[in-house]
C-alpha cells in the first residue's frame, strides 16, 4: 500500500512543472469539474516522468483538490497508467484470443531470450519493459504488439528481431 504524506498546495504547485500544469489546464476546458481531470493529470505526469510515483499521486490530488487515495484508486484501475517505474520503451504484447491462436506466446518467449524480460520486467539497461495488453484491434494482422506509440503487426520472431534492431540505433 502506498503511503501518502500530507503536504500543502504550494508543495504540489512546486512539484508539478510548468509544462505539466499547462498541459493539465489545457484539458480543463473539456470538463465541467476539476476532479474530472484526474485521468488527464495522471497521463500528463506519466508522459513527462515515465511513471506515476506516490509523490506524483499526492501532487495531482493536492493540485485538483482531491484526496490522494481517491486519485490512487483511479491510477491503479487503468491499464495504461504505470504505478511502478518502467523502461524508456514499453512493449505492449497482445495476448488476447486471436494473437494467442497465432503465436503471441512464441513472441513472448523470443522477447525473453533476446531481451531477458518477461511480463512486468524491465531490461537491466532500463530500455524496455514488457507488459501484456488486451486485443489491440489489429486482429486481422495478428499477432500484434505496440512499442511506445507504434503498432506492429503480422509478427514472427524474424520480423520482431528486425523491428528491435532498427529501434536500437
Amino acid at each position: 500500500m502506498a503511503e501518502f504524506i500530507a503536504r500543502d498546495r504550494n508543495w504540489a504547485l512546486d512539484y508539478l512543472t510548468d509544462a505539466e500544469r499547462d498541459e493539465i489546464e489545457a484539458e480543463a476546458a473539456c470538463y465541467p469539474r476539476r476532479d474530472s481531470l484526474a485521468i488527464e493529470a495522471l497521463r500528463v505526469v506519466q508522459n513527462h516522468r515515465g511513471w506515476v510515483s506516490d509523490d506524483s499521486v499526492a501532487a495531482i490530488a493536492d493540485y485538483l483538490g482531491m484526496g490522494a487515495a481517491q486519485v490512487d484508486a483511479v491510477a491503479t484501475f487503468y491499464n495504461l497508467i504505470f504505478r511502478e517505474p518502467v523502461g524508456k520503451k514499453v512493449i505492449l504484447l497482445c495476448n488476447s484470443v486471436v494473437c494467442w491462436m497465432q503465436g503471441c506466446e512464441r513472441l513472448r518467449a523470443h522477447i525473453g531470450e533476446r531481451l531477458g524480460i518477461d511480463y512486468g520486467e524491465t531490461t537491466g539497461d532500463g530500455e524496455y519493459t514488457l507488459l501484456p495488453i488486451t486485443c489491440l484491434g489489429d486482429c486481422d494482422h495478428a499477432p500484434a504488439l505496440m512499442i511506445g506509440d507504434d503498432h506492429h503487426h503480422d509478427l514472427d520472431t524474424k520480423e520482431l528481431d528486425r523491428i528491435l534492431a532498427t529501434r536500437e540505433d
Partner: protein
Amino acid sequence: MERPLTGLMRGDGVALSLTEYRDGGGYSALEKALKSWSGEDVIEEVKASNLRGRGGAGFPAGLKWSFVPRTDKAPRPRYLVANADEMEPGAFKDRLLLEGNPHLLLEGMILSAYAMGAEVAYIFLRGEYVEPRRRLRRAIDEASAAGLLGRNILGTDFSLDLYLHISAGRYICGEETGLLNALEGKRATPRSKPPFPQVSGAWGKPTVVNNVETLCNVPGIVRHGAEWYRGLGLAEDSGTKLFGVSGRVRQPGAWELPMGTTLRNILEKHAGGMCDGYHLKGVLPGGGSTDFLLPEHLDMAMDYDTVGKAGSRLGTGTLIVLDDKTCPVGMVLNLERFFAQESCGWCTPCRDGLPWTRQLLEDIEDGRGSLEDLSTLEDHTAFMGPGKTVCALAPGAMEPLQSALKFYREDFEQHIREGRCPYD
C-alpha cells in the same frame, strides 16, 4: 453495391481530408438537416430507418434518442458520447472508420447531437488507438475552422462543443455507464440502471452513448432517406454492416456488406476461405463475448434476429474463426482469462466467479480436470447469466463458454480422460 460507410475512403489508407469528404458529398446531410429539418424530424427519419446500435446490443438508435428529455425545464447541458473504446477481443471495425474517414463520424455526431438537442459531445477513444487519435484531432481542427463545430454551426443557431477523451484503458470502459464514470475521471465501475443515461448520465445530465459505427450511419440516412437505408439490408435489418474476420483464413480483414449477408459469403468470398491445411471448426460471430456458431450455420444471414435465433449474437460483427488445429478449451481459457482480468470487481458473481471459471479451465487444459469440473462450469454459466450482475460483462463472458461446453463437449472430455491437451 452501395457502401455509405466506406465507399468514399481512399485506397492508400490515408484519411479523407475535409475537402475530399466534402467533394464526395460530405456534410451535405448536415446542411440539409440544419436548414430544413427540426431535431425531431431527424429522430423520426432515423427511427423509420430502423438503424440499430452497432456497439453489440442492437438497440434502435432513434428510439434511444427519443428518451432524452426535451422540455424547457430538462437539465442541461445534454451530452452525446461516441463510444470508440473498441476493446472487445477480435473487434477492429471502428478503427477502420476512425482512420479512413474521421469526418463521417464527426458529421454523424453533429447530426445526432442536433437531433437530441445535445450541446456538448465527446469521443471516448481507447488510448492504444494512436493513429485514430491523430486523425480525429486533425479532423476536429478542420471542422472547427470551417464552422462545422463550435458556435452557430453553418450560420444557424445550433452550437456544439466536441472534445476528445483519451481513455487510460480497461475493457469495462466500453460499457456505457462504466464509460461515463471514466469520462468523469473516476474508476470505470458500471452504474446500476435505472436511471438510464438518457435521463441521468455524464455528470448527472441527460446523455446518449452510441457506438462509432452507429453514428457513422446517420449522415447517409439523412441524406438519402429511411427508405433507401432499409433497402440496403438483405433481410429484416436495414443498412450495411462492417463485417470483419480474423483467425486462420486466407485474407483476414473487414468489409462493408449488406446487413444479412450470409456467414458463408463473408468467410469464403471475402475472407478467402480457410488457410491450407486448416478446417473450420466454429466461429464467434460478434467478438469474444458471443456464443460459438458451427459450420452448419454457414448459410445463415448475419443480422440481429437471425443470429439471435441461432443462439448467438451479431455483437460487433467481427468474426473470430476457430480452426481444427486450435484447442477449443485453450481458446475459451484465453477468453475467460481476459474477462476475469477485466472484471471491475463490483459484483460478486463476476468478481469471484470469473477467476474460478478460469481456474477450472486451466485445470482441464493442463490435464488436471475432472468431469465434475464440467458441471461446475455449467453452474457458473447460470450464476453469471443475464440479469445476475450489474453489467453485461459477466453474461457476455459466459457466452463462448456455454456454447463451447455444448458444441465441443468431446474436446473437454478428452482432456479429462487423457489428462493432457490433445492439441499440444
